[in-house]
């Protein structure tokens, strides 16, 4: 039975128990003059929960845990030199075995790999049977046990509500587990990377030239691999800077115009139009940048005698700037509107023109909020992926020239991790180290922005 059908069966069993539970409770009430503690549908829900919840939890554990268990079992097949080897050897061995399981063949397969693969396939099919039997059995047993507890004095509602409360609490911990998942997955691999490449080489290295180990060993890779992240961070911040140079003036002045000058009608039309820019998927921006903007930038640049790379930082940055305009304008609009009207009145009462009031009173008062908006925008730009993957190059030039091709942290991560990867190679692991730097940067920027916003709120509350 497929996973989907199994889940469906459990739900059907649960629904059946609901009906029977409710009938049983209602029946008890009908036979006598006794009053149920809880209304009959709570008894039904109780039976439904006891039949579905434990069964689904067991299924979840099986689905998520089986692979770990199989890996453990498969390690018994390892020959001594692999079992005694380091993590890399074991990961490669496991990869060979899973290839056999998936029916992918690369050349000669060692006998122990073949037998481990066959065993693994057997475990897979056995697990399906075990899972089916176990889940359906637990579902039926649980339902029956729950059903038997139904009586007129059974406090079904309290039990159901307690379980619901725990389910709510469980749901809200998903955010924590997601964070833990992100941090651990990136941290572990980064630590492994830093065992291969010293952190100072990574943090301060000026050259980025990742190589697959195979190529390095064979001497065909063109020199040794170097993993210095500086060129990528320079590229990232160069593109972000260009983006902000577009987005901040346009977004801020749009916000000022919409908040202070525009009539309600104009505001009602322009604001949603700007929001559309925020809703366009980044892959569309990337396509636009690569196909339309980059050639224009190149031909314009060359017509005035400049040398422009066909994947220039300028094109990617310009388009990223367009993407960020609505972000800046709506955040700035909010903070400008949050400036108390009393301050504007004071300025107008003294005979300020509108622009004097805006420039000398409103903007200084809104400045912290605007700064926070800009910082948040930087964090968006740094984490943006598709535009740079499609429109910025992959050449890790250490350059501050917007007309050069540069690469960014996110586009390197995508390039390294998309497609086939070599296990445990420094190149694959370097993507995780880059991701670590990426989240540290974005979270720091966000934290800083939120601190500013907090202070700003206190000022007016």
């Amino acid at each position, binding site marked *: 039975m497929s996973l989907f059908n199994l889940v469906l069966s459990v739900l059907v069993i649960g629904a059946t128990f609901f009906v029977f539970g409710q009938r049983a409770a209602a029946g008890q009430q009908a036979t006598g003059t006794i009053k149920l503690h809880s209304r009959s549908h709570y008894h039904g829900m109780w039976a439904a929960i006891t039949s579905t919840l434990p069964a689904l939890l067991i299924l979840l554990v099986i689905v998520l845990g089986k692979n770990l268990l199989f890996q453990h079992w498969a390690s018994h097949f390892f020959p001594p030199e692999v079992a005694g080897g380091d993590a890399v050897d074991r990961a490669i061995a496991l990869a060979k075995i899973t290839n056999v399981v998936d029916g992918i063949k690369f050349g000669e397969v060692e006998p122990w790999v073949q037998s481990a693969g066959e065993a693994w396939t057997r475990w897979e099919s056995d697990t399906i049977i075990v899972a089916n039997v176990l889940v359906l059995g637990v579902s039926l047993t649980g339902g029956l046990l729950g059903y038997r507890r139904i009586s007129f004095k059974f406090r079904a509602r309290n039990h159901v509500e307690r379980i619901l409360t725990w389910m709510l609490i469980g749901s809200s911990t998903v955010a924590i587990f997601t964070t833990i998942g992100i941090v651990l997955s990136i941290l572990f691999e980064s630590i492994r990377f830093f065992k291969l490449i010293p952190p100072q080489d990574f943090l301060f290295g000026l050259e980025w030239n990742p190589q697959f180990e195979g190529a390095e060993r064979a001497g065909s890779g063109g020199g040794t691999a170097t993993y210095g992240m500086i060129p990528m961070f320079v590229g990232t911040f160069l593109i972000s800077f260009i983006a902000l140079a577009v987005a901040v003036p346009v977004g801020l002045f749009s916000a000022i115009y919409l908040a202070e000058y525009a009539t309600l009608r104009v505001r009602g039309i322009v604001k949603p139009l700007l929001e559309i820019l925020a809703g366009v998927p980044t892959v569309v921006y990337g396509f636009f940048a690569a196909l339309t903007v980059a050639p224009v930038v190149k031909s314009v640049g060359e017509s005035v005698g400049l040398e422009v790379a066909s994947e220039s930082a300028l094109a990617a940055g310009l388009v990223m700037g367009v993407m960020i305009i609505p972000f800046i304008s709506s955040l700035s609009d909010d903070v400008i509107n949050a400036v108390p009207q*009393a301050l504007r*009145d004071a300025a107008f*009462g*003294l005979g300020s023109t509108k622009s004097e009031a805006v420039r*000398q009173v409103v903007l*200084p008062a809104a400045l912290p909020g605007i700064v926070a908006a800009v910082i948040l925008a930087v964090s968006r730009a740094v984490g943006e992926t598709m535009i740079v993957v499609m429109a910025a190059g992959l050449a890790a030039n250490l350059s501050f020239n917007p007309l050069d091709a540069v690469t960014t942290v996110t586009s390197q991560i995508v390039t390294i991790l998309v497609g086939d990867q070599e296990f445990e190679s420094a190149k694959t692991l370097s993507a995780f180290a880059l991701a670590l730097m990426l989240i540290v940067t974005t979270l720091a920027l966000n934290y800083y922005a939120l601190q500013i916003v907090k202070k700003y709120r206190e000022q007016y509350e």
Partner: protein
Amino acid sequence: MQLEESSRMVQTTSTLEARTIPDSTLGQIHADNPRMKARNVDVFYADKHAIDNISLDIGSGQVISFIGPSGCGKSTFLRCLNRMNDTIDSCRVSGEIMIDDQNIYDSSIDVVLLRARVGMVFQKPNPFPKSIFDNVAYGPRIHGLATSKVELDHIVETSLQRAGLWEEVKDRLDQPGTGLSGGQQQRLCIARAIAVSPEVILMDEPCSALDPIATAKIEELISELREQYTIVIVTHSMQQAARVSDRTAYFHLGKLIEVGDTKQVFTNPLHALTQDYITGRFG
């Protein structure tokens, strides 16, 4: 005759609703030496008729107070006098308000010039989140009143002195104006208005957010300022109106019911509504 009429109404009607609101204002709308003259002013907020056909002179060198129950239009009318209502989109004003025989709603009038001549102090103290000095210097700076730093310093100092705040703040001019107490903030706002050297100062319930001691100081200040400025003050406190103003105007439901010398209005009101209000029957 009007007196008779109103006393007759007091005798014959027991409910306020029954009182008729006169078509025209009772008392003396004219002033001897008018600085501003309002004629047949109507104000609409979208569909709401907020001010209904008001005509009134603001006498030069006088303090005139506007009183009346809340929502009677006294603040709205005050804000018409320097076109502060322009900032509200749905607001429409018709009629004439003259200053030096020029209609301030005329298209040739620059609202910046007008507001430099007719300054305003608001209900809640609203200092800018800047230093005390910059607060007072704001007006002179934008209007280019000072030709040098020395002159600017002089304007700031005299303004603060006239607002009676100089002694309290002279050692901390670079500290934020928002750090002062409520009463000090309001005097700072008055100093800020004075610094532009206006002819008229409009005050919209300037003491409503202040404690009695701060209120007393502001009232004292108003009595001193009357020597050089024409002051229009909206107040919900009849005692305050009686203490500080030369003339008093009573507003009711968007109409100017009665205007006259403060003493006369408070001791011998012409209209029963005024009488009811000042004797505290409603409001």
